[in-house]
């Protein structure tokens, strides 16, 4: 019983009457399936990357050309997806303000695993030109497990493609596991997030 309660999240950010409206389960870690099965599945995952583009920063402007005839991301099995439920790759489009961080966390948590994060531009690494802004965060991977950083201000679409290809290689090699990392270090991530986001009116984990 006690163990079960430990698995529950406190959801302290929610008023009492709203608590039943949100799921209070903790995220879990997952073991890979058998070696060859997982390898096959990873191949499929790598070749069908559905993007949730979160164009909060100016970097996102370089995401759009990917869909055009010139860069044609579809040929690598990349496709935009309008809902986080179906997307597998979260592309963070640049600097992350306090306000957008909250939404990004929510969207990331709503994605189904395995899920990957590509952070776009210098701002996500160290804040870039906003490093001393009162309103942006500096290091994204304090808040979300980032798989690939693509540097530049802003990075060109070619750089993005390179980043995606790197991600594909990592997936195939089973080198990246952001979902499990997030679940394992959930309390640390959550503490970091809550340090930034003061008006935490969401559940602790957005299923």
């Amino acid at each position: 019983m006690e163990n079960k309660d430990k698995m529950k999240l406190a959801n302290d950010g929610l008023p009492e009457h709203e608590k039943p409206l949100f799921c209070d389960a903790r995220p879990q870690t997952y073991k890979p399936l058998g070696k060859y099965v997982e390898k096959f599945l990873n191949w499929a995952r790598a070749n069908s990357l559905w993007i949730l583009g979160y164009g909060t920063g100016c970097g996102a402007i370089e995401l759009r050309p990917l869909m055009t005839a010139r860069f044609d991301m579809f040929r690598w099995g990349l496709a935009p997806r309008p809902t986080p439920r179906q997307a597998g790759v979260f592309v963070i489009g640049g600097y992350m303000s306090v306000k957008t961080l909250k939404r990004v966390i929510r969207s990331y948590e709503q994605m189904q695993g395995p899920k990957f994060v590509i952070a776009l531009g210098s701002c996500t690494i160290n804040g870039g030109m906003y490093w001393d802004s009162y309103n942006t965060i500096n290091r994204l991977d304090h808040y979300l497990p980032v798989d690939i950083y693509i540097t530049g201000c802003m990075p060109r679409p070619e750089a993005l493609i390179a980043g995606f290809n790197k991600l594909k290689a990592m997936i195939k090699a089973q080198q990246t596991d952001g979902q499990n990392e997030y679940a394992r270090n959930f309390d640390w991530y959550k503490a970091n997030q809550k340090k930034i986001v003061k008006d935490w009116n969401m559940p602790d984990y957005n299923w």
Partner: protein
Amino acid sequence: MVNPIYIFVIALFSAFLLPVIDKLGRKVTLGVFYLSLTAIFAVTLLWFRAFGEGALIENIFTAGSLPPFSINLRMGTIEAFIMLFVNFGALLGAIYLYGKLLENKVYALMLFLTLIMGVNGLIMTRDIFNIFVFLEITSISLYALIGIKQDARSLGAGFKYIIAGGLASAFLLLGIIYVYRITGNLNLDLIISENPLLLSKGGLIALFLVVVAFLIELKPWPANGWALDVYEAAEPGISAMVASLVAAGMVFVFYKFIPLLPHSWHGMLILFGMLTFVFSNLTGLKQKNARRLLGYSSIAQMGLLMAVLLLVRRFNDAMDIRYALSDIAAALFVNHFLAKAGLFWLSGIINKEKARDWSFNKQPVLVLLFAVFIFALVGLPPFPGFWAKWTLITKLAQYNMIGWIVPIIIGSLLEAAYLLRWFGATIKREQTEQVIIPRYKILPPLLAAIVLVIIFPSFAPYMTGMKTMFFFPLLAAAVLWLLDVMPERMRGMVMILILAAFGWYIYPLAKGIVLIFEFMFIAGGIVISLASLNSARPKQGYWEFLVMLIMSLALIPLAKSSMEFFLAWEFMTVSSWLLILRGKNGEKPALTYIMFSLGAALLILTAFALSFAETGELGLVLLSNLNIYAIPVYILLALGFLVKAAAMGVHIWLPGAYSEAEDEVTPIFAGMMSKISLWGFILLFGYMGNKVLGIFELPVLLGWIGVFTAFFGALMAVFQEDIKYLLAYSSMSQLGYMILSVSLLSHLGWTTALYMSVTHLFFKGMLFLAVAGIVSRIGTTKMYEMGGLIKKMPASFISVLIAIIAVSGVPPLSGFGGKWLLYTALIEKGWYLQAGLSFFAGAIAFLYLFRLIHTIFLGQLKARFREVKEASLWYIVPQFIFVGAIMAISMFPNLILKPIMAAVETQFPSHVNWDGYTVITALGYWNGNAVMMITMGVFMVPLIWLLVRVNMVQKVEQFNIVYAAERPDRPETTHFAYNFFAHYQKAIGFLVKEQITNFWNSVSEWFHSLSATFRHIYTGNGQTYALHIIIYIVVLYSLLGVK
């Protein structure tokens, strides 16, 4: 036998005696007074009994010589009959006036006695001058009695009355003297025997003057403003006397003069009577004062009675005239006499001027009395007025006077409109203050009501051959009413037992198609009634009307004669109307419903009358023999049934009626009562088949109406926000399909109609019961206020889910069978465009069905419903009985299809083959069983795949949705439900603008405006009224062609 002259003796003697003995105290005087009235009543009672035993007409001679040298009286059956009621009414009226008589001067007693004597004299005397004298005696005592109230209003009214009465007697006197001058006689019998003398130029003028004087006394429209004022202003006890016994005397005098009237006058006089009937009722529409309203109704009834007295003269057969007099005129007379007196007395007890101030719904005695009198006046069964109208209309048709049926129908509808509106409003208005009922005041209306109830069998004509069971609905309702002391659930059980027993009783009588209908009505009725047991809170009148409704529904298919059919039909109409009226906001929809239903009933009645006219018999079978009237009967019946089916154009009663009725009743309306129109069409087509009018085949026309009903019903259902309205329109749409398929007049078509009606009963029962259960828990019928209830009410959800799959016709459930049969039948018949449109309607059904289930059960649960529980078992059990039935017939369609097809085969040859579970028509085939199996198979495969991996599924809560990276704010703003099909409205919403509702609203508005216009002739000025009388006389004079 007591010489009737003693009536005068008693009256006069005690009238003179009273002031003398008044010295002994008023109680004594009153004792003598009541004693003498009782004595008078006893005399007439004795005479009436004697005539009942076969006594002959007796002439009583006075002054020791024979006429013409003396005045003679006549006591015959009719006289005795009228006087019986007059003196009974006098006694009751005197009892009612007890309080007034106690405090007023003794002269009031004397006046009352002279009044009674005058009326008795008017009835008995055969001397025309004596008639004048008695008229004056009656009038003068009446004037004085009106004045006794001693207030400005009654005095003003009385004065106007005197002016009018004086004018009338002036003309009467002139007429009498000229009649004497020309015939040399004052004795009516002698004058009649020398009738030719009067047919001379001067004679006609003399006769005209006499007749017109009595016409004025009968208060013809529009020369009757003074009478209205009297009705309104006089003491209600006096108004009751004027409306009942004085009117009775006047009508009888008019009746006495009828043999003198030249035939050429009859038509015009009938017309004036009918005009009075129609226009008084029309003017009554706008009336707000209760007693004046009753006045309008009285005047109308007198007009009708006068017209009827003349109309029956046109019947060729002497026997018929006699029957007509007893069955129509006497019934109308008794009906009006008791009901109107009763209502006036009631108005005195309530003592509220404005009709809209009446409210006494917590005092059952008053409610019951009011109901009896109003129903009697409107002519609802079983009261004499019902039989009178039935006989009148059939006889009129028989004697080829169809034209006169029209004003009777219009007038009756208008009268029903204001009386039933008044009834509905009064019953629905919450009572705030207790009505104090003095015992002496309640006794007369009570007795009148009792007499009305117990007297009705003697007016039910053609009882021969009419099965007693057609009165069972009434009996069952009475039994349940008497069991009122029982706990409510017990009464419900008794009601279900009665239904079961009734089902057992009629089972041997039904076979084939009838059996299918009986199955629907009885079995469906029992199952649906179970839901009504959910609450133990007392429900006045609920079980009574429910059992009446279901039983009368079950009786209609068993009717062998049109009389039986119509009686059961009216019972159904009345009981369903009262059930709607019970609903919380039922007043207005109930009125619309009853108006349309009565209209339909009158159309059906006319059709039956025409059929009777041609065949001379009432058997429904004879509809197939019709020749001359075939087309009109066909059209009238079809129109009547279309109204009942709420077809396009006459559907506006349906949504309100279904929606505002109590939630437990609605499934009975939608699932069962709507089917009765289908039975009507089966009857119509079964007996009359196909008929062609001009270039139109009527069934084709009906088919088009059906398919448009299906289409527009579905379309309107799409745009409803109220769940019950949505379902109501859905029922309308489904009925449309049934009309369409039954109009096909083919084996497949009828199979479709019957199959659909049975399955429709199942799924509409489920849907409405589910809705009832939900509404009982959450207390709203607005769909956008619901949402997410699937987690709280899973059983209701399953039932609704099954139902909507079935309604929409998606395989593998039984609804598909209906659709498949329908299209196959339509294409087989060659009704291709109808098939296309009904397919469209079927597709539109998806819209409202999805909306139904989505906005209630899916989406976001509202905070205030978080603690809601599943509906009570009383709702769930019947639903799951239906679920079981649907699953069974989906799996094994043969269960229902084979009996239906066999039943239909008695009408049409079948082209359908069976191969195991496969039904094969010329066009296609369908194996419900295999479809079910395959569907289950293909359902299992992906389900197993998901279940294998069910471990990885995390159950989440309602706000765990993707919401553009935000969290939802409130369920209300997240639940997409209001104006669900906004874009659809934008695209084709223009098709369902409320044009038909507007049309009917303007019909109502026109009538009310007309009413408002016409009543302005009643200026309230006595001189104007006198002028009306003069103009009336002049117009009548020129129109009668007296030269």
